[in-house]
C-alpha cells in the first residue's frame, strides 16, 4: 500500500510528505472530530466496524474507478454484485459444489457481465450510461428469476462466511482482528493500483479516458482494451458480491440498487474526474472511507436520521470543495 501511495503522489505532483497528508485532510478532520464528540468512536470494535462497512462499497468503487477513468460510467455495479452473489448461491447451495467453485463462478460471472457491457460500449457504441443502465435492470431481474425471488442461504457451505467475517490477520496478530473483507479490499485496491500505474492495461485505461481517438490513431486496439477494463471491473464486482454474500451468509436478490451511486460518489470524492483520463485508487479508497466514517460517526452520535442525510450532503460538498481549493493552491 505504502508503495502505491508514494508512487501515485509522486506521479501527480512530485511534492513531498506534506502533500500526502493533505490528501487525507478531510478524512483526518472527521476522525478527530468524531473522536472528540463521542468516546465510543475510537473503540477497536467500532474502528473495525468502519473498516468492515467500507469493504463492499470500497471494492465496488475500486472497480468502477477503472471504468470512470476510461471516461465511462458503470451503473450496474450494485445489481451485478447481487447477481454474482446469487450465482455463488446457486453453485454452492443449489448445486452443492465446493467453495472454490462458488468463488470462481461469482468472479467469472462478474467478468462475463462486464465483458458484455464492455462489448456494448466498445463495439456497438452504446453510450456507457445506457449500456450499464440496461445491464443494471437486466441483472436485477435475472437475480430475482434465478433465485426464485428469495434469499439463498449458505448454510451448507460452512467456510463461506469466513470469506468476509473471518480474520486471517487476527489469527497471526490477535490484537489486530481485522476481518478478511477488509483484507480483501486492500488486496484488490493494491492489485488494481498496480495494474493502473504499472501495466499496459492501466496505461491504456488512462489513454482511453484522455483521448480515445489519439490512442486509436497510435495503433492501440482501443475496443479490446475497453472491453478488458469493463471485464476487470465486472470481476471486481464479483469479489464484492462474495464479500456481501459472505457477510449476510446469504445472497439477497433484491439488494443492490443504489449501491452504484455510493460507489461512484466514493470515486468522485476521491478526486477521479467523471470526464475520464485521471484518477487514482488511493483517492477512491479515501473517498469510500470518508463516506463510511461520516455515516458511522453520525450514527454513533445518535444524530436523527433526517439530519444525518443533510449533514452527509453538506460534508460531501465541503470535502470535495476543500480538495479543489487545496489542489489549486499547490
Amino acid at each position, binding site marked *: 500500500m505504502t508503495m502505491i501511495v508514494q508512487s501515485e503522489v509522486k*506521479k501527480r505532483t512530485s511534492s513531498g510528505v506534506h502533500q500526502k497528508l493533505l490528501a487525507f485532510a478531510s478524512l483526518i478532520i472527521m476522525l478527530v472530530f468524531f473522536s472528540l464528540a463521542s468516546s465510543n468512536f475510537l473503540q477497536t470494535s467500532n474502528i473495525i466496524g468502519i473498516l468492515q462497512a467500507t469493504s463492499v462499497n470500497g471494492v465496488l468503487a475500486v472497480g468502477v474507478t477503472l471504468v470512470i477513468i476510461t471516461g465511462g460510467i458503470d451503473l450496474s455495479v450494485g445489481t451485478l454484485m447481487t447477481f454474482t452473489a446469487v450465482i455463488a448461491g446457486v453453485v454452492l447451495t443449489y448445486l452443492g459444489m465446493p467453495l472454490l467453485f462458488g468463488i470462481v463462478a461469482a468472479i467469472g460471472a462478474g467478468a462475463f457481465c462486464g465483458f458484455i457491457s464492455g462489448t456494448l460500449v466498445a463495439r456497438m457504441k452504446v453510450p456507457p450510461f445506457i449500456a450499464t443502465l440496461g445491464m443494471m435492470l437486466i441483472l436485477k431481474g435475472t437475480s430475482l428469476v434465478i433465485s426464485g425471488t428469495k434469499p439463498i442461504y449458505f448454510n451448507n457451505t460452512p467456510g463461506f462466511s469466513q470469506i468476509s467475517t473471518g480474520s486471517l490477520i487476527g489469527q497471526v496478530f490477535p490484537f489486530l482482528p481485522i476481518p478478511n473483507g477488509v483484507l480483501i479490499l486492500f488486496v484488490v485496491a493494491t492489485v488494481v493500483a498496480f495494474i493502473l500505474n504499472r*501495466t*499496459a492495461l492501466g496505461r491504456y485505461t488512462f489513454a482511453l479516458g484522455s*483521448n480515445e481517438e*489519439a490512442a486509436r*490513431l497510435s*495503433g*492501440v486496439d482501443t475496443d479490446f482494451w475497453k472491453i478488458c477494463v469493463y471485464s476487470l471491473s465486472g470481476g471486481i464486482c464479483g469479489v464484492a458480491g462474495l464479500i456481501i454474500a459472505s457477510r449476510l451468509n446469504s445472497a439477497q436478490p433484491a439488494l443492490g440498487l443504489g449501491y452504484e451511486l455510493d460507489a461512484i460518489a466514493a470515486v468522485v470524492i476521491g478526486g477521479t474526474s467523471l470526464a475520464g*483520463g485521471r484518477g487514482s485508487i488511493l483517492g477512491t479508497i479515501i473517498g469510500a472511507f470518508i463516506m463510511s466514517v461520516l455515516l458511522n460517526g453520525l450514527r454513533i452520535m445518535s444524530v436523527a436520521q433526517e439530519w444525518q442525510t443533510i449533514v452527509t450532503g453538506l460534508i460531501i460538498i465541503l470535502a470535495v470543495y476543500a480538495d479543489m481549493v487545496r489542489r489549486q493552491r499547490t
Partner: protein
Amino acid sequence: MVELIRLESIDKHFPGVHALKSVSFDLQTGEVHALMGENGAGKSTLMKVLSGILQPDGGTIRVAGNDVTIPSPHAAQALGIGMIHQELALMNDLTVAQNIFIGREPRKRFWRLDEDALNEAAREIFSAMNVSIDPRAEVRTLSVAQQQMVEIAKSLSHKSRVLVMDEPTAALNDREVHELFTIIARLKSEGVGIVYISHKMDEIKRISDRVTVMRDGAYVGTVSASETPISKIISMMVGRELDNTQADIPDLSGAPVALEVRGLSRGKEVQNVSFSLKAGEILGFAGLMGAGRTEVARLIFGADRRDAGEIIVHGKKAAIASPKDAVSAGIGYLSEDRKHLGLALGLDLAANVGLPNLGRFSNGIGVIDDAKLGSIARDYIKQLGIRTPSERQEVRLLSGGNQQKVVLAKWLLRNCDILIFDEPTRGIDIGAKSEIYRLMQALAQQGKAIIVISSELPEVLRLSHRIAVMCEGRLTGILPGGRETTQEEIMHLATQRRVEIGGEAA
C-alpha cells in the same frame, strides 16, 4: 504613430517553469509587430497576459497610456484587445456563425436571437476575407485550416484596436496566407496594431515592421524587420547559425518499393488515388486546403474505411482495417490535428511517447518498465529540444510547438518502415524545424519510406524526392523533387479543377 500597448517587466511563473522573465514589449498604431522565439520561449504566455487569460506575477500593462489590469478576456475585449489563439478555441457543436458571434448575438423581439442577421454578418466577414465557408456548417465538420479561418473571422468581427495573432498561418497554405495578409494590410491602414507570432521567417519579412525576439522566457531585443537580415533574427532566437541547405536527392533506382497504393477511394474526398513509394524515398504531398491529402493518409493508415483500393506493403497486400493493423504493418501516421488526434493531453510526456510502443516496454504480463520508458523519453527531449521541466509533465501544459515534438517523438520511437507525416512542422520553431528536416533525411537514409504532407511549399520543395499534388480528391500529378521543380508548377497542378479536366477530355 501612437503607442497602443506597453508591457513592462512582465513576470510569470508556472509550477516548475519560469515562463516570463521581466519581458517588455510595445505596440504602435498601424504597425505589425512580430514576436519571435523558439518553442516554449514564452510568446503565447506573454500574449495571454495581454488578453486577460493569464494574470502576470509582476510588471505593468499600459493601454493607450493608461495603467490597466486585465482580469478577464472580457475586460481585454472592452479595452479593444482581440486575440486569435494558437490552440483553436472553438465550440465544435455550434455553427460557424454562432461561433464567430458568441456573446454578441444580434437579438430580435421576445429575447429571440436573430439567426438570419447572424449568418448574414458572418457571410459578410467571409466575403471580405475572400474565403468561402458556410456560416451554417457545424464547426466540427471543418478541417483544421477552415477552423483557423473561422478563428480569424471571429477576431476580425470584434473590430479590435489591437489584434494578437498567435500563429494564424500554422494551418494555412499559401493562398490562404495571401488572403490573410491582404486583410492585415487593410487593418494596418485602418490604424489597428497587430502582434504577429509565427515561425515562418518569410512571413515576418513580408508583413512586419518590427521584430521582437524572446528566448527562454526573456526579452532578447527588438529590431526593424526591413533592415535586419533573417539570419540575424534567427541567431537572436536560437543563439547559433543554422544549416539551411537542401540535401541531394539520392539515387533510388535499385531500392525496393515499400508502399504501393492502388485506386484508393472514399466518397468525394478521395478518388482513385494510386502511387508508389520506395524505401529511402521522401514523397511530398502538396495541395490546397481540403485537397484530400489528409484523407489519403487516414485511409492508408486505416483510420477511416475506404470504399475501394488496395494497399501493398513491401510487395504484399496488407489488410488494413484499423490503425492497429497499419501499425503492425509498419506504418506510422503523425496526424495534423495534434490536440484532438495526436495527443492524450491529460497524460504526461512519457506516457504519450509510449502510447504506440508499450509492447516494447512491458514484460509478459504487461508490466511497464517506466524507468526505461522515462530514459528514452528524456533522450527525445534532448534530441528534439523539447522544452519541459521533465518527462513527467502533462502534455497539455507544454507550448504548442513542444506538443508537436512529442507527437513526433512518439512515432520516431515506434521505428516504422513507412512514416506519414501530416504537417509535421506545424507550429515548430525554425531551429527545431531544421532539426526535424535533418531527422527525416536521416530516416530516409536508413531506408525508411516517408510521406510528408505539407501546406508550406518551400518545405515540400526542400524535403521531397518526388512531389505528389492533389486537387479536389484526385492525384493530379507527381513531379520530380529538387531544384528543377518550381512553386508555379505545383500550383498549376493543385488548381487543376475537375471542370478543366472535363474540358480537356471533351
